[in-house]
């Protein structure tokens, strides 16, 4: 067989780690990204990466990390992959350290660790409050090294459109769009690995980057890939408002001692600095004495909702609370949280050293994503030699990072996403290499007609979209989608409103057909590309909404007042959506809970 070649789509942490591992195996990689990889959304990750290195004399261990992770996810994560990830975590942190990530240090020059949500241990390594950026840069540098050596070919500012599949249904390549020339082009690949991140834009303004439309993932779903646990969307408790996006204020602010509170008196007009201690309600510390401000994000967001909406104690009468860092020494704040202090000062004009920050919950992360497989060992870890790890239900199509559903169950713990991205890339890359080497027919030997047909299909579609006239504006439709999703499919979910949201999405899909292209240029035509993306986003929005409608229980980030309890007998199951001409059709499958028995999830 000819030397295999693998395509990786997406240049965030997961995609870059997979690229490095594949290149290290001597297999050439074509790396596609809609932005120069150094500008991927992973840069936004702030607080750190978890790994039970146990440097604080706390007797922490990977097994405790594993337990915290599955409990944090309300027991919906398959346990062997989650456990394997937690055991690999210390090695991952060491690897990043060797790559030159500027992690903060202890007085003795060891890696420093801090607290994060959903655990009682100092388990989070961090580089100031820009850990994701620092890790992305380290991987970017390693990829550049392989690029200089000729093993990696980058296609930056290329957008994934769809798969190329042979007669047997195996994924043998992809079609991508050069965002400048606006021409779809087919590429052969012995395996295609999607690392395209989350679907934040479905909710309009979120903590996500402007590029996180979810459309690449949605395209895979529309072409037959299963989408799992789509209804589990993480709402981060602490963000700041903005007209273009909602900016995250890292959980590490609370990890370093930040306290969340509201005035006890409704509508208290005083400045927060002037409200005495006794007249403040530290509502998380009061209700959860053990975990305090570091309860998991789903719990904290629901509490903020309760205090602000049900009790009416929100700051300025809004869904807003104080996050107070003013008691922490200035130098320490700057050294450990400088990145977010800077963002807060720049975007609000206020100084968190002297006045409590005003923060509110915002859509942040998708626990759900493309369904991917794994091979477990008898003792409850992953069989790393298996090509099944991280493969979707479509042979030869892999997924790693936020675009897939493994590891986090119904709620992700803070600082576990950087870990899962790296781990998925580290495991998925070699799995794809094994798969590619096992194939009897190389993608290079597949009939040219397979690629010509896929390419022509997309060429025709873009030619059709480029002609599109009509009275609707795709950006306005996207805004309406975001508003509806944000109002109805976030912290609190009611069936009637979920049904209304689905009706709204269908209405938008109808109006999408009348959306004009807005730009006639054959060169760097963003609106044309967005028109294609939006149709895919609408399809994915239905998966999220109808998945939530279907799940009649409350678990992790998914909360229904009409079904407030977790129902393991019926719903300890992975939701799986398959695309059909009438929209998503659902089934569910059991969760591997063979290692620890699900118990009631408590943090008080």
């Amino acid at each position, binding site marked *: 067989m000819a030397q295999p070649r693998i395509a990786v789509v997406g240049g965030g942490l997961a995609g870059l780690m997979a690229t490095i591992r594949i290149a290290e195996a001597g297999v050439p990689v074509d790396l596609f990204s809609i932005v120069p990889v150094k500008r991927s959304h992973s840069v936004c990750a702030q607080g750190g990466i978890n790994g039970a290195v146990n440097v604080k004399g706390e007797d922490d261990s990977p097994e405790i990390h594993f337990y915290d992770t599955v409990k944090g996810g309300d027991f919906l994560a398959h346990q062997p992959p989650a456990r394997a990830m937690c055991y690999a975590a210390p090695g991952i942190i060491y*690897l990043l350290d060797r790559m030159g990530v500027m992690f903060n240090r202890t007085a003795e020059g060891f890696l420093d660790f801090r607290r994060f949500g959903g655990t009682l241990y100092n388990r989070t390594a961090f580089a100031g409050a820009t850990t994701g950026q620092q890790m992305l840069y380290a991987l970017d540098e390693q990829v550049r090294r392989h690029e200089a050596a000729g093993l990696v070919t980058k296609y930056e500012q290329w957008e994934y459109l769809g798969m190329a599949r042979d007669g047997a249904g195996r994924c043998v390549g992809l079609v991508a769009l050069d965002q400048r020339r606006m021409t779809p082009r087919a590429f052969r690949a012995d395996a295609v690995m999607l690392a395209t991140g989350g679907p934040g834009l479905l909710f309009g303004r979120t903590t996500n980057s402007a590029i996180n439309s979810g459309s690449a993932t949605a395209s895979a779903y529309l072409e037959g890939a299963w989408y799992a646990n789509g209804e589990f969307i993480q709402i981060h408790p602490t963000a700041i408002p903005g007209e*273009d996006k909602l900016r995250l204020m890292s959980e590490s602010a609370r990890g370093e001692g930040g306290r969340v509170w509201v005035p006890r008196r409704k509508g208290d007009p005083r400045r927060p600095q002037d409200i005495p201690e006794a007249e403040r309600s530290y509502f998380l510390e009061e209700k959860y004495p053990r975990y305090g401000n570091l309860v998991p994000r789903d719990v904290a967001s629901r509490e903020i909702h309760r205090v602000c909406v049900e009790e009416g104690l929100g700051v300025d009468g809004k869904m807003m609370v104080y996050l107070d860092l003013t008691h922490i020494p200035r130098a320490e704040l700057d050294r450990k949280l400088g990145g977010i202090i800077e963002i807060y000062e720049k975007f609000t004009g206020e100084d968190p050293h002297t006045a409590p920050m005003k923060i509110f919950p915002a859509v942040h992360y998708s626990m759900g994503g493309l369904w991917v497989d794994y091979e477990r060992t008898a003792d409850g870890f992953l069989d790393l030699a298996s090509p099944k790890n991280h493969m979707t239900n479509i042979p030869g199509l892999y997924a790693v990072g936020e675009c897939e559903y493994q590891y986090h169950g119904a709620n992700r713990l803070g600082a576990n996403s950087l870990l899962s991205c790296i781990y998925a890339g580290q495991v998925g890359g070699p799995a794809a290499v094994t798969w590619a080497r096992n194939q009897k027919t190389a993608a290079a030997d597949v009939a040219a007609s397979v690629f010509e047909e896929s390419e022509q299909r997309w060429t025709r579609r873009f030619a059709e979209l480029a002609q599109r006239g009509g009275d609707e504006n795709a950006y306005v439709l996207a805004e309406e989608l975001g508003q509806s999703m944000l109002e109805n499919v976030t912290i609190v979910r009611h069936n009637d409103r979920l049904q209304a949201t689905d009706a709204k999405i269908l209405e938008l899909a109808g109006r999408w057909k009348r959306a004009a292209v807005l730009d006639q240029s054959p060169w760097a035509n963003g609106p044309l590309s967005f028109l294609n993306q939006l149709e895919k986003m609408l399809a994915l929005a239905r998966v999220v909404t109808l998945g939530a409608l279907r799940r009649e229980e409350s678990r992790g980030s998914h909360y229904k007042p009409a079904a407030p309890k977790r129902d393991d007998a019926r719903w300890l199951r992975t939701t799986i959506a398959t695309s059909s001409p009438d929209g998503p059709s659902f089934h569910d499958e059991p969760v591997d809970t063979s290692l620890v028995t699900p118990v009631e999830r408590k943090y008080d």
Partner: protein
Amino acid sequence: MPRTAIELRIKRQDGPSGPPRWEEFSIPWRAGMNVISCLMEIRKRPVTKQGAKTSPVMWEASCLEEVCGACTMLVNGTPRQSCAALVDGLPEGVITLEPLTRFTVVRDLIVDRSPMFEALKRVRAWIPIDGTYDLGPGPRIAETERELSYAFSRCMTCGCCMEACPQYNGRSEFLGPAPIAQVRLFNAHPTGAMNAHERLEAIMGRGGLVDCGNAQNCVEVCPKEIPLTEAFGELGRQTTVLWLKNLLRR
């Protein structure tokens, strides 16, 4: 007096070969708007101030919180990230947006900054690790050293310093401030120091450190306040030592 409308003057260009043209827009003011949200408003209703239909303005953006470097442009003539350019923080009157001038325009406010990434290859801006397999922890580093290095590792490759540098333009050989400063970062790392000479050699020839005219504009515009000129001073010492060593070895 607070604005009620936001007036924008935007330099547009259909492709790399130009020609540029100016278009004016007027959009309703809302509290907390930044330049990006103005551009988002325009694409929802792409009509000029004069009422002529036009295409949405094209710009590059990703993180929208000044950590990715994508949305750099000239805002009222100054190179900066447009996400961090809050409308209420800009002087009253028309806001002018232009693409960076030291790079080829792709379209409208989008420029091609790939020369910066190519320069990172030339200066070998990476730690040459043995492999990704488990080799245990990395070298111990003092927190004070770490803090110094962290300042350089925050470089977003945004291009502000390149834009402000009088020595850097599309035709000169000069690598520019950002890629050169990365040499300082990697040479300070205990592992990176093992092949410091390779990076120094990359900045010793033409287009390297000697082409820096010491105008110090780069530090003025760096959004992350990276001590670029300090790096150049330090690298000047390192290259001199290497030059002497090479001389003695001959």
